[in-house]
């Protein structure tokens, strides 16, 4: 039995403590926006926020999560996809297949929460999730665009990153 605070709600789950948080989120809690990609904290498709920090949930045993830890998944990031990162992603048509994008968006949201105006180098260091479709160029542009939006900014949609 574990108590989890997910997207603002406390949920109880019956599960072995060594079960990765990812699979508890997907299977016991039924929130499938968080994806399985590698199971070894390499690809970042399973990224969620734990107390505001981006974490790879496939490598966190659920038994190590406290009931007071606040977990946010892609489903809980915003109402109606209104987070600046989601808006920027939509504006620049970032996703291709889309499978990794929940994780990319969670990583970007975490970056911007700490660093409102990241440089390219900041983005290089923070955005380490794997995308096989190769959306990286637009991911970078969209992080910059979201930073501008969050600032209340004048950032106009640039279709392409030609930095």
């Amino acid at each position, binding site marked *: 039995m574990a108590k989890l605070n997910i997207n603002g709600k406390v949920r109880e789950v019956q599960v*072995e403590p060594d*079960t*990765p948080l990812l*699979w508890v989120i*997907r*299977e*016991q809690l*039924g*929130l*499938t*926006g*968080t*994806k*399985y*990609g*590698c*199971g*070894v904290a*390499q*690809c970042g*498709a399973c990224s969620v926020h734990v107390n505001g920090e981006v974490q790879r949930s496939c490598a966190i045993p659920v038994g190590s999560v406290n009931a007071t830890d606040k977990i946010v*998944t*892609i*489903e809980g*990031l*915003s109402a109606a*996809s209104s987070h600046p990162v*989601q808006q920027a*992603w*939509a504006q620049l*048509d970032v*996703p*291709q*297949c*889309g*499978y*990794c*994008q929940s994780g990319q*968006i969670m990583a970007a949201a975490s970056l911007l929460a700490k660093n409102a105006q990241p440089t390219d180098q900041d*983005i*290089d*260091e923070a*955005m*380490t*999730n*794997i*995308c*096989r*479709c*190769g*959306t*990286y*160029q*637009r*991911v*970078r542009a969209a992080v910059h665009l979201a930073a501008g939006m969050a600032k209340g900014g004048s950032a106009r949609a640039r*279709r*392409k*990153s*030609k930095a």
Partner: protein
Amino acid sequence: MKTRRIGNVPNVSRRRFIISSAAAGGGLALGFQIPFAIGAAAAKGASPAGAEVNIWVVVKPDDRCVIRIARSEMGQGTLTGLAQLVAEELECDWNKVSTEQVTPGRNLASKRAWGEMGTGGSRGIRTSEDYVRRGGAAARMLLLQAAAQQWNVTADELSVSEGVITHAASGRKTRYGKVAAAAARLTPPDPKSIKLKDPKDWKIAGKPLQRLDTADKLNGSKVYAIDLKLPRMLHAAIKACPVFGGTLASFDESKILSRPGVRRAVKVNASTVAVVADTWWRAKAALDALPIVWDEGAGATESSATIAERLKEGLTAPLAHAFRNEGDALKAIAGAAKKIEAVYSTPFLAHATMEPMNCTVKLAADKAEAWVPTQNAEAALAALSEESGLPLAQCEVYRHDLGGGFGRRGGKQDYVRQAVAIAKQFPGAPIKLIWSREEDMAHDFYRPISQCRLAAGLDEQGKLVGLHLRISGQSINAQANPAAIKDGYKDDRQLQGYTDKPGDAQFGYSVPNLLIEYAMRNSHVPVGPWRGVNTNQNAVYLECFIDEVARAAGADALDFRRTLMAKHPKHLAVLNAAAEKAGWGTPLPAGVHRGIAQFMGYGSYSAAVAEVSLSREGKLKVQRMVLALNCGHAVNPQQIEAQVEGSVAYGLSAGLYGECTVKNGRMVESNFHDYPILRLAEMPQVETVIVPSHDFWGGVGEPTISVVNPAVMNAVFAATGKPVRSLPLKNLKLA
């Protein structure tokens, strides 16, 4: 704008579906016959013959237009592009367009009215553009005819824009939603009477519109097949003998049955075992704990070294398939003033789609259903039927958009067969099979391995007088389509990009004496198409060697190519476009070097210029890549750019890191820690030049990947003066 799936309603015939969907949604389906499209489909497909009905457009009373899509969407944007082509001819309001997917069962029941569903070879748009545009046009004609009849005028007195029909003479107006019901009762137009728009008049197609399928990828609500939930569903984790060709000897189920949630361990087929549990994680954990004995078989003695040895022998073996033999290349080279020789090699590669292989199957006595991410829904249907033993008419496949395809999820449908074999052992329970990443890396259909031996001769003036190119390597056809190999060794497919014939993958150079050969040398490793397939390796061999020859001739890499390309103006045009955009020949910052390459595949012409930096310690960074592509009609330029950017990332992952090595008959690499993928920090700045051309339809998803690595390798050659003759680059000392 949402994408809806029509196939999730099982057990309905196509006609019944039309009636019920019209009743339920208040809309209707417009059907029409397109015999020429049928001919094309029948020629390619499994079920020919007979008149067919094509159904592409549903118009709702509120003017929303639902466009049906038969091809798979795996990120490449075909769904949006096809909708643009239909909407262009339909003259509807693009803001009211949504799409829904056709299921293969319904396609089959309608004698393949929607044509081919397989989505590979960059064919999604280029081989269906004609009949989908005619579908949109025929729908428009019916809607106009219905309005004309209501007003007692002729259809040619009417005009339409964004779904609003106007009779100018009387000032009357109506909308598609109002006349759609009447239009559906009209006789479809004679296909010969359909005149398609001149692409220069396009307003929806040809424009950089946003994708239709983005919204639910941003908030976790998109249901990939791996996310599917069905009542009473059980979960399966799977393991096949790690040695290719080996078999399952035994397993000890008793050791795992007491674990929570575990139902059983079952034999799936001769080489494979699965554990079924109430959740996938419990199944996977139990599988890891399951004692399994394999009979590894003869393949266990194979390694990368034994396979490479076999390929090396093929480079000089007396018998080879002479694919092209023009003039006398061997004599010309032997008598040349200067000779250049080299041997190149490229490794096995895994696809590593982000969404691992998966399939959910539900079996009943008279019905088999599968939910699956597939590039070939009809092949999935066939696999479901064969494995379940139920006739095709009692099978249905619900295609989910794929979390990546890249060729992995095309013909084989191995995961469908496995899921059925498991489901047969659990009557009444739908089974969701998910592969672990480790299983995905261990049991791919890998990009085939090959080596290439090249020789060239230059005359006193540095002119190329002869070229001999021999590839020795594994054949995809040997496993997938042996009938395509003539006389047991003549397999043209492995020579993709070297043909003399225009149209698909034409060799871009004129060489007076030319010999191109293939020596088939197979291994026990399963192989298959991998984004770009053989153009990747064949472009590396040709384009890197051409740089070596140019250097031996004392010529600039671009100028040398140009002298060989006078008879190939389209190849030359993209090469020039890439060179111009990249500023070929202009000074570069210290430590930065350029390389160039061109190649043709999938009906399109590609060229690239790479700029790389190399530190004194040998650290390579690809800084910038300019790619030029002529794909003929450009249906959505911003999505073409996205595909080009993606091809750079996929190509560079392979070029820098990609390598599957064989040891004791199995793959060594098991996950992203030892099969690294390019990450954002390593992504170069990509600039795409779409070279406009309106006289053909070429592919987009695959063509440009072929030129990515040769351009980078040639830039490294420029930096070090030493040619790069093998991939991945991580294995080479560049300092």
